[in-house]
């Protein structure tokens, strides 16, 4: 496993990226099936989205998906940036930016989801 790890990507982060990727793939297939196969019109209507997210297990699954997919995307971008061999100084700037972008994206998505969940009640 160590041979596959890039110079500055710690093995822990590499493992999280791989594990989150597997989880994302499972959850995204569920997400795509619901959005393209369950609704008779092809995409969920407003009322169908409200009813869908009104189920607390579904809401929890979608929030988990959002957190995991954002984390995986941020780690993936970092991995690509590492291939450009940035200096430690540049990396010390990139890392917090990626963390902030990830937190904002996931936080915004969770906030949206919670508003919709609130409308279902």
């Amino acid at each position, binding site marked *: 496993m160590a041979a596959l790890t890039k110079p500055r990507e710690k093995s822990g982060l590499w493992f999280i990226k791989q594990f989150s990727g597997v989880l994302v793939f499972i959850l995204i297939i569920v997400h*795509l099936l619901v959005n393209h196969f369950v609704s008779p019109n092809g995409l969920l209507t*407003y009322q169908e989205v409200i009813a869908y997210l009104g189920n607390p297990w579904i809401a929890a699954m979608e929030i988990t998906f959002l957190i995991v997919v954002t984390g995986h995307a941020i780690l993936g971008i970092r991995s690509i940036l590492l291939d450009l061999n940035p200096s430690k100084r540049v990396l010390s700037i990139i890392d917090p930016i990626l963390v902030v972008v990830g937190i904002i994206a996931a936080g915004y*998505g969770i906030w949206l989801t919670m508003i919709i969940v609130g409308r279902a009640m």
Partner: protein
Amino acid sequence: MVNRIAGLGLTLYLFLHLVMLSKLISGEAAFTEFIELAHTPLIVAGEFLVVLAVLLHGLNGLRIAATSMGVGSGSQKAFLMVVTLIGIAGAIVFAIKMFGGA
């Protein structure tokens, strides 16, 4: 390289998707207008590209994760073939659903 381009495309789509879903909090009329736009051929074609990117990046990622853990590393060509066939089958199923109006 293709795997990385697909990953970058999906990341861009993730952020766009979150922005577009803000239509949900604007109410039913705004979301319905957005869904009508999403049914136009150009957007459906774009959505299908997203599905292809998910299948390509996801299945290839699963293959890489499995082989790096030693699973199927002795028969990588056969593994690649199986993953490719699953991807093609998935793409056909989604294409029929998304473009066939079924």
